[in-house]
């Protein structure tokens, strides 16, 4: 029997399959779209084809209660901390950059959340911010990474607003700035937004869909914070944490 953790995020729904020894044996990710129930069904069907799944499944994220199966829901911040603690077993600062949220978590030596903060109402500096800019510049995430390698210096992006940031970038291109230098500027602007949420203490763990898709961000973090790392498949950690967490937690179990 396998347990299934599903993180129903604003942009993507991530699923992990976990065996009886708490080891992850499979990952699957689909776009959340407008229907979380459909997205979660796709995750469940994907794993159910070859594995016997134990119900309830364990969920977190914006769509955590829109699941067409027995489920146990949880806060993704608590779940993420649980998974990070499982890996690191020490106090950490966690920065998670997702589709529309950036989260800053201070986790103590017992793996508990001591303090946390989420980005303000605006989604600048999140995955959506980068996706919008990529769309407008007609550049894929892979090309972003490739361009970033060619950068010779950083161009500073000032605007807080995604739309105005694009206008600012277009103005920079007009004035002769190169795309690689601008891309480094965009990455650094995202990092700046995240570290101003709180004070980084101890080891910094970077997680979420954005660093997973844009590994340059992780390297740029490491320049600023040498004591930092980003685990592999970090965008799946909250889903994994759900499975780990619900062995010990007291959560409502609902069947739709």
């Amino acid at each position, binding site marked *: 029997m396998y347990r299934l953790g599903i993180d129903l995020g604003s942009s993507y729904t991530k699923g992990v399959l976990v065996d009886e020894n708490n080891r992850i044996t499979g990952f699957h990710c689909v776009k959340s779209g407008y229907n979380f129930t459909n997205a979660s069904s796709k995750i469940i069907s994907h794993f159910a084809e070859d594995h016997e799944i134990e119900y309830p499944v364990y969920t977190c994220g914006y769509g955590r209660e829109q699941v067409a199966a027995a489920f146990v829901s949880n806060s993704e*911040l608590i779940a993420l901390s649980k998974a990070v603690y499982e890996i690191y077993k020490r106090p950490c600062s966690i920065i998670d950059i997702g589709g529309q949220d950036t989260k800053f978590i201070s986790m103590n030596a017992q793996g508990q959340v*001591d303090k946390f903060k989420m980005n303000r*109402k605006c989604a600048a500096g999140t995955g959506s911010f980068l996706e919008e800019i990529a769309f407008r510049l007609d550049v894929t995430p892979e090309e972003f990474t490739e361009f970033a390698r060619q950068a010779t210096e950083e161009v500073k992006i000032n605007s807080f607003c995604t739309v105005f940031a694009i206008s600012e970038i277009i103005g920079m291109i007009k004035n002769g700035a190169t795309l690689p230098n601008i891309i480094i500027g965009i990455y650094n602007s995202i990092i700046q937004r995240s570290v101003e949420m709180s004070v980084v203490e101890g080891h910094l763990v970077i997680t979420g869909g954005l660093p997973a898709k844009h590994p340059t961000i992780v390297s740029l973090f490491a320049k600023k914070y040498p004591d930092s790392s980003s685990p592999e498949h970090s965008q799946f950690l909250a889903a994994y944490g759900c499975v780990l967490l619900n062995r010990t937690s007291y959560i409502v179990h609902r069947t739709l």
Partner: protein
Amino acid sequence: MEKLLNMSEPIIQEKSELVKLQSAGELRKTMDGYFSRLREAAETGVRKVAWCTSVGPAELLYSMGFEVYFPENHGAMLGAGKNADKYIPSAVAHGYSPEICSYLTSDIGAFLQNETPLQKSGFKSVPKPDVLVYNTNQCREVADWFGFYARHFNVPILGIHTPLCIPELTPEIIKTVADQYRNIIPSLEQVAGRKFDMDLFRQAVALSHDGCVLWKEILGKAKHRPSPINFFDSAIHMGPIVVMRGTQYAVDYYKVLLAELDQRIQDGISAVPHEKHRIYWEGMPLWYKLSSMAKLFSKFNTSIVASTYCNSWVFDDLDPADPFESSALAYCKLFIVRSDAVKEDILQQLMIDFSVDGIIYHESKTCTRNSNNLFGLQNRLFKKTRLPFIEINGDLNDPRCFSEEQSIIAIETFIHQLSGR
């Protein structure tokens, strides 16, 4: 099918339960009476109408025979009626920024659209003022807000200008403010068409004091565990202390409410049926989400037992023996007008008095004066109390400034965090 896993200590109740206060009926009658007197004055001219800010010199105005109307109360009604975002754009189009007080923008916007929730109570429009009186102790916006109406109605506007961020209440500060109280009297006499009467002022100050003491006692009942009243109740039941401060009506109502709370404690009835966590709410209410927030916290077995907002209408320094100086003292002692160091001390004591487990700071987009997490106070208080806190971004009236889903996740995580302690 619904069931709870590990039933021994559920964090979440599947159904939120709210225990309504029986005094709500009496509250309705008291507020209806207030609006009916106001309407009569506006329609017949039998008494003059003064507009006053919520922590302005209400006692002085009542003692001089005015019916007193409070635009901030009107602003809160627009917010609670979920209509503010319909009106704010009109004020914005007339040059008022969407970044300033959304009570102001929604109130002026509604006026420009000739709409008011008071129309449901038979008013044609908001009662026309004969005079506008403000105190800047809470913010400067009130002067601009009243200025709009003074120009529109071409009526006198009188102001008391209180020093801000007061660290120590010195005799000089008290004198400055008390003198301003005295100085507006001749203009008020002219509008009222009658002489100021010191005995009537003393009487109003005494009634205001008694009402405030009762209100303080009511809020203090939340020290009991479990609490018989929470923030969401208080935000509604504070109506009389805001608009009828200085009258017998407020005193009479709060005696009824106090008796009910005493009875609740005796009967073991709490505002949140399964109270487990006790939270302090710092900042303005989210008026348009009052009911859903009340349900959300109840679902999490969490009672918001105290708040800066509701505690702000406790003017127990008022003294009929020395009405001017004690008014100045009481209205300068107000939390919002104090320095951060004083605020920290007050908050620290409240956390102890109300056995608080954590603090929620509501950072209100358009009310920075009522958002006390903007200058690092939250971190300093954390160092002193070690009480966990979260910051919610929203607004008192403008729902467009509030991301509900994101806030619910933050609140849920916070309750889990408290559960793990």
